[in-house]
């Protein structure tokens, strides 16, 4: 069953990707529908597995005999004592991801049918999308870290292919490369973590590794030391930073918006970038046992959630503003994941609701671009609510959800994380709350610039509503954005995830929970009001003004993220590479070429022995024979 869930999209990719004129003609008419169908079928299968879990009783943490299904496909590799199987594994956590990936994935596939209608390479696009879905499903359904890693690399590849899908644009090709390279840095972390696990646990299975860390099963060489666990935790965090665009590996996400908008919605908002959160939550036992690594997660998370929020304020490109917001929201999830069992459940909760409302808004942005001739500059929008009523209304639902308007899904999920953060430390809580305020500001600014204020359209642009195939997914996602909060009803989400993340032990809050809620609401309201008075009430120039204060300049330049990378990493690496080049040319090549020259010279000399005269050959046999016999006699007598 689990193999089928992954296999269907993979099959789609296999059918759709190979080129050739025949397949092109054959598959271009229905290829995209095949893409939609495979993912939708996987969703149905995922739903069946999910419903199978619902009836199960809730048991103990961590891995025990109920409420999960595993599948051993074959032995992947067996080296010495290390044996890693191609195992699939579904539990309460992964099945939520499966539903999110395939559910939102189906809607985005559907939307793409309309969005990519005029693209010659639509078949290929759907092949890549299917490949991505398959890899992402493998990531969350893998039963050990190696399987997870395969999926991890797979989504990296699919992401690269899709960001650079319009490879004729130089910027897209560059962005794809940047994303790939930065992700590789994170992948290194995951590899290091796996190596450490093999060394210390001799195993990569979740159950063995996590069980040993948590002390549930006997470790081979005694319980692992805290240093070891901390190192593994930090390596995993590095991996998560790469995939989830967390500081310091955040710089690729904004550039990744060069990809087609459905890609941004599916991969760079709803699913792939949350893989890091999945990794941290899945490895919760490791972070529980390593307070240093846990603190590192929280620091990274808080920095990122503010970093992303600040970026979101300064961007005029609607997709980049949303990307900044994504970065920030994932920061919230990481924060939750770093706060231990109780936070982890809320992190996943926020991850799911964010998946809904962010996919909704990205697709909405795509719909706006569709109507505005692919213009992404919000300074060229304005007053679009009349022209694009469906897009406007659905977008508004997403907007209210993300700023945390009471009753909408984002309100419940974000509020819970901030509340837990206050329980951990008032400072972290306050910073998280500040982030919420900034969210209110930049989202309102985006909303106003796009749908309200005056028309600032470019000449010849005639905004129009998108076709039904694009608006239906919008409506479904909007409904989910509103109702996603229902998962919290009766504490369902925490109960559901308890077998995976563990029992929550409540921290004492510094103030009553409703006070925190109120404070958050007020902060958000201040943010919204600020946006209203600075953006809504003023004239918006069609060109971004240049004489702005330095914080705005810094934010427009992605807080100098690229410059920092350049100075700290790129330049020194270049220096090193240049130095090594010189060394390589002068020393290594010199030695190699010298040897080669000597060999050729020796060869040319030696071949003279092979003169073709049989008498010389006989002489060499005779000489050799004498030598052998004499040597034997001399040495041994």
């Amino acid at each position: 069953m689990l193999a089928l869930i992954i296999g269907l999209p993979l099959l789609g990719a296999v059918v759709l990707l190979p080129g050739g004129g025949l397949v092109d003609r054959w598959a271009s008419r229905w290829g995209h529908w095949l893409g939609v169908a495979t993912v939708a079928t996987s969703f149905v299968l995922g739903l069946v597995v999910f419903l199978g879990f619902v009836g199960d009783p809730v048991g103990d943490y961590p891995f025990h005999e109920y409420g999960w299904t595993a599948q051993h496909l074959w032995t992947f590799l067996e080296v010495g004592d290390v044996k890693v199987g191609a195992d699939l594994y579904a539990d309460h956590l992964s099945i939520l991801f499966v539903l999110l990936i395939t559910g939102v994935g189906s809607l985005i596939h559907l939307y793409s049918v309309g969005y990519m209608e005029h693209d010659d390479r639509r078949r290929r696009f759907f092949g890549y999308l299917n490949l991505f879905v398959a890899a992402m499903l493998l990531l969350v359904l893998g039963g050990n870290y190696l399987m997870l890693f395969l999926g991890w690399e797979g989504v990296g590849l699919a992401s690269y292919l899709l960001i650079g899908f319009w490879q004729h644009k130089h910027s897209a090709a560059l962005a794809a490369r940047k994303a790939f390279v930065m992700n590789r840095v994170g992948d290194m972390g995951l590899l290091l973590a796996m190596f450490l696990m093999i060394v210390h646990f001799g195993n990569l299975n979740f159950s063995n590794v996590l069980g040993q860390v948590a002390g549930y099963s006997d470790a081979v060489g005694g319980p692992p030391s805290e240093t070891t666990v901390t190192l593994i935790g930090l390596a995993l965090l590095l991996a998560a930073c790469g995939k989830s665009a967390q500081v310091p590996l955040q710089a690729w996400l904004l550039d990744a918006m060069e990809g087609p908008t459905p890609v941004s919605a599916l991969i760079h908002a709803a699913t792939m970038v949350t893989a890091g959160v999945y990794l941290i939550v899945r490895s919760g036992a490791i972070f529980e046992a390593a307070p240093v690594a846990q603190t590192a997660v929280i620091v990274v998370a808080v920095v990122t959630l503010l970093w992303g929020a600040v970026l979101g304020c300064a961007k005029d490109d609607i997709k980049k503003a949303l990307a900044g917001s994504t970065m920030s929201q994932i920061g919230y999830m990481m924060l939750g994941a770093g706060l231990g069992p109780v936070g982890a459940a809320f992190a996943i909760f926020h991850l799911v609701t964010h998946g809904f409302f962010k996919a909704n808004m990205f697709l909405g942005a795509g719909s706006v671009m569709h109507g505005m001739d692919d213009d992404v500059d919000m300074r060229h929008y304005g007053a679009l609510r009349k022209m694009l009523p469906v897009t406007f209304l659905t977008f508004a639902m997403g907007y209210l959800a993300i700023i945390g308007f009471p009753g909408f899904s984002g309100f419940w999920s974000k509020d819970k994380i901030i509340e837990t953060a206050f329980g951990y430390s008032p400072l972290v809580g306050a910073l998280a709350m500040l982030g919420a305020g900034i969210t209110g500001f930049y989202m309102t600014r985006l909303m106003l610039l796009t749908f309200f204020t005056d028309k600032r359209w470019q000449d010849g642009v005639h905004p129009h509503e998108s076709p039904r195939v694009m608006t239906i997914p919008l409506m479904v996602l909007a409904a989910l954005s509103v109702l996603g909060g229902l998962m919290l009803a009766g504490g369902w989400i925490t109960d559901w995830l308890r077998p995976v993340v563990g029992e929550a032990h409540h921290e004492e809050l510094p103030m009553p929970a409703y006070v925190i809620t109120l404070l958050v609401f007020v902060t958000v309201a201040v943010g919204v009001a600020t946006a209203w008075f600075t953006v809504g009430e003023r004239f918006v120039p069609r060109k971004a003004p240049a004489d702005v204060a330095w914080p705005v300049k810094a934010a427009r330049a992605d807080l100098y993220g690229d410059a920092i990378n350049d100075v700290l990493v790129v330049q020194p690496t270049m220096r090193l590479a240049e130095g090594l080049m010189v060394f390589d040319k002068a020393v290594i090549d010199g030695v190699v070429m010298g040897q080669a020259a000597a060999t050729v010279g020796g060869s040319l000399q030696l071949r003279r022995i092979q003169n073709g005269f049989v008498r010389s050959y006989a002489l060499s046999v005779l000489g050799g024979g004498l030598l052998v016999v004499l040597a034997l006699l001399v040495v041994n007598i």
Partner: protein
Amino acid sequence: MTTFQSPHLGYDLIWPLLLVLGAACVGIVVEAFVPRAWRYVTQVLLTLTTLAVAFGGTIFVATGLDSRGHGAAHGAVVAEGSVAIDGPAVFAWGLLLIVAFFGVLLFAERHLDGGVSAFSGQAAVLPGTDAERRVGERGLEHTEVYPLLLFAVGGMLLFAAANDLLTLFVALEVLSLPLYLLTGLARRRRLLSQEAAMKYFLLGAFSSGFLLYGIALVYGYAGTVRFGGIADAIANTSGQRGLLLAGIGLLSVGLLFKVGAVPFQAWTPDVYQGAPTPVTAFMAAGTKVAAFVAMLRLFSVAFGGERWTWLPMLWAIALLTMVIGAVLAVAQTDVKRMLAYSSIAHTGFVLTGILGTGASLGDDQIGATQAVLFYLVTYGLMTLGAFAVLTLVRDAAGESGELRGWAGLARTSPVVAAVFSLFLLSLAGLPFTAGFTGKWVVFASAMSGGAWPVVVAAVLTSAMAAFFYIRVIVLMYFSEPVAGGPAVAVPSILTSATIAVTAVATVVLGVVPGPVLDLAAHAGDFIR
């Protein structure tokens, strides 16, 4: 009164060998009585059937062996002690028969050269005369090559199983004489071919002299020609040691000559180049298999007690062979000649494997016999394949080995270029090819024998050797084709099948060597 005792031959064990020799005799009768038009078909079918039945028989014999002995060595000494049928012997038999089978397929190929085989129409006519032209017009060909091949195969089978010095010598001659003849039978470039045959014969006879004299000396020392008896004599330290040492030295010369080890390699390039390519393929693979198994048997059974006498000599010769073979290959401009030098280098690698003889082994370590047998499998198959590909690239004068002509071959014939690249990479010993696994096992064996200096040198030599293999690949893929260069002829199913099977085997032995390694391990040790 003494009554005549009929010798116990053990027909149930040696019948595959007798079958091959018997079929060779039948082949001669066929030559005499079957009409010319039918000879080709009759001979090819007879030869292939014989080899296939003998192969089946070998498997049957091999499965029967297990019940006779226990422990690592199993088998029986038959024919009054002159032939040993044991694990390594039947393993070598199987391999030799496979090599011979595909050799016959290459022999029988008639599509490449306008409907005639690679062999001369009438070897007796002088090259460049009218008589030769008339023979060509009549479309004559020598079908004697098939019985000759069977005789050679019979000699090889006996060589690998010989358990006394005289049988060893007889087997050597039985395998060599047909090969001398076959070498001189090329249809194209006949002078070169005849010259090669002459050289091969003269030098072969010369080296046989060494071998015989060695046999005489060892007999003088031990008073017996049986391997087991010699070992006993060494254990009892009876006799004059000087005789033994000189005998070992001279015997080594004879055997090392056959495998083409330095400094007895001089004949190899000339003969490999001059012989018809199918003969070269068969000879390169078959002779080495037989000679190495015979050498292993002689050294480990008869001279096992004097291990530290001859091992240092083999160290030196292995080293020299690898280095000289690889260095000389670098300067070659002819693909066939380059492969000949490469086969010299490979001889060095096999010798490396022998250096592990008698070493005490851990549980999962590889013994010398196992390593050498496995290496011979990989080497035999990839050599057959590489030479088979060589027959395809032709110009007006026949096969074209001239390296320059191979430039850009990948443009015109991507499949041939790809397959040849595979064989070259395997010969170079790249991972995931048979050559890599083979090198790995012989090096492992040498390491367990403490011969790490040789292994270091061997690894360095492999790197050097990679140069000339990969140069051909670079030439085929990254150079512009030359005008008027050779073209690739389309072969019949015979050659295609040979190339396909050896190519698949090259990959399979590189990726999943386990079963064949187990088989080689199962062959166990030599019996006494």
